């Protein structure tokens, strides 16, 4: 809504550059346009749509390929089949809870690096079944470690004193059932699902 005038040093030409859209002193010539006038607009929106759709397909592809080593269950997994997750899978059908679960990982960097490497492998390998022997940890170690830690976490979670010691961030989801939208990782607070009997503990923590 304002204009800025640049005058040529020689004074010969006046260059009016303005972005005021109420009036147009300097008409732009539309002669000899080869493409459609709104080609930038069309190109922009088409490019945007393509990008968004591409992103969606990439994400769904990532979810489909995922971990290729599921046919090889770890002995840890066999032993701790019902308890080993930090998520209280009270509703086994509603595995969308898992999207919001934050497993009780040890904070060791090696584990995170392990998972990140594994992620890269899973993404890059796209279904190749061999474990990468070149890395220091392979899938079995990762999953075994995770489940071991998760089980520790699960056991300790049932102890009230340890709960307060753990200092859970206060977006613990107190609801038993997940309503629409609560289970999405990215749009809600990622909760730790607690069992119903530990509601009182978490309530106490939140209100303190």
């Amino acid at each position: 809504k304002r204009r800025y005038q640049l005058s040529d040093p020689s004074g010969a030409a006046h260059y009016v550059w303005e972005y005021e859209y109420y009036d147009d002193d300097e008409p732009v010539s539309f002669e000899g346009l080869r493409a459609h006038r709104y080609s930038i607009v069309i190109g922009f929106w088409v490019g945007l749509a393509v990008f968004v759709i591409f992103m969606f397909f990439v994400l769904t592809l990532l979810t489909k390929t995922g971990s290729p080593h599921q046919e090889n269950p770890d002995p840890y997994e066999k032993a701790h089949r019902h308890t080993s997750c930090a998520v209280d899978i009270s509703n086994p059908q509603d595995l969308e809870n898992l999207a919001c679960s934050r497993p009780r990982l040890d904070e060791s960097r090696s584990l995170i690096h392990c998972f990140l490497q594994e992620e890269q492998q899973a993404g890059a390998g796209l279904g190749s079944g061999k474990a990468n022997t070149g890395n220091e940890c392979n899938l079995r170690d990762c999953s075994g470690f995770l489940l071991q830690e998760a089980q520790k976490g699960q056991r300790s979670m049932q102890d009230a004193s340890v709960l307060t010691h753990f200092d859970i961030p206060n977006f613990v989801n107190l609801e038993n059932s997940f309503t629409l939208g609560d289970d999405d990782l990215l749009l809600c607070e990622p909760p730790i699902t607690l069992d119903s009997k530990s509601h009182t503990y978490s309530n106490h923590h939140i209100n303190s």
Partner: protein
Amino acid sequence: MINHTHANETDCKVVTIPSVIFFTIAVVSLSENVLVVVAVIRNRNLHSPMYCFICSLALFNTISSLSKTWESIMLVFIDMGHLNMRGESVRKVDDVTDSLLCMSFIGTIFSFLAIAVDRYVTIFHALRYHNIMTMRRALIMLATIWSFSGLSGIIMVVFFHTAVIMTCFITLFLVSLILILFLYVHMFLLARHHARKITALPGGATHQRSDLRAALTLTILFGVFIACWSPFFLHLLIIMVCPQNPYCECYRSLFQVHLVFLMSHGVIDPAIYAFRSAELRRTFRKMFFCCDSRSDVWK
């Protein structure tokens, strides 16, 4: 082959949106965001870093809707002839509203970034979350965001004609976009990975539906952000790069449409960020039922 009309100089007429539409969008956005702010303030459970960032986002949206409403009202008065468009005081007020708008735009982008960082820390440093993201640090972050946005708003309006400032602004937008995309995709990958781990247990079933939903969520989050913000920024880029080009001129003629997109993001934002939280929805219900029960008492 070359088909040009013999008519006027500019073939791309400026597309004008009636002020009513701007006004409606601004009012709806204002009410939604004020509701979010009030709910966060009233509920003590929501006094956490995460909700502080969401509240800050809602505040920036409120400011942008307020200034846009004010600008629409002023435009209406100008059209009716009560105000002189070239008058000094009108220009000054126009400057103030413009700088408030710029401030809210920059602040919104940084609030998105803060929310993404907060979620990232939640996922990747779950046990140390409370030590990393204390209320004090969150408030410091917010204070930095607000002061930087305020300063940038003023600088942008005063020095709008310099190419450097505009380049900085556009670069800032692109960098924030890429950073937010990276953070969310990384979080998404880890969440998928752990979900897969847990479903790999005997007795667990692979739930394709939840995977698809998370992918859809992320796409919507990002798609809406890009669709609402990029047209405006492309406009700024085009102003700098090709002011005389006829194609660019046609793009620039749609400025008000792009502004509508930007404003509508203030309407969609609460639906994506704030209303998805169960605790916040509970607070709303309490607020409304409280009013309803009070009105029953008075009957």
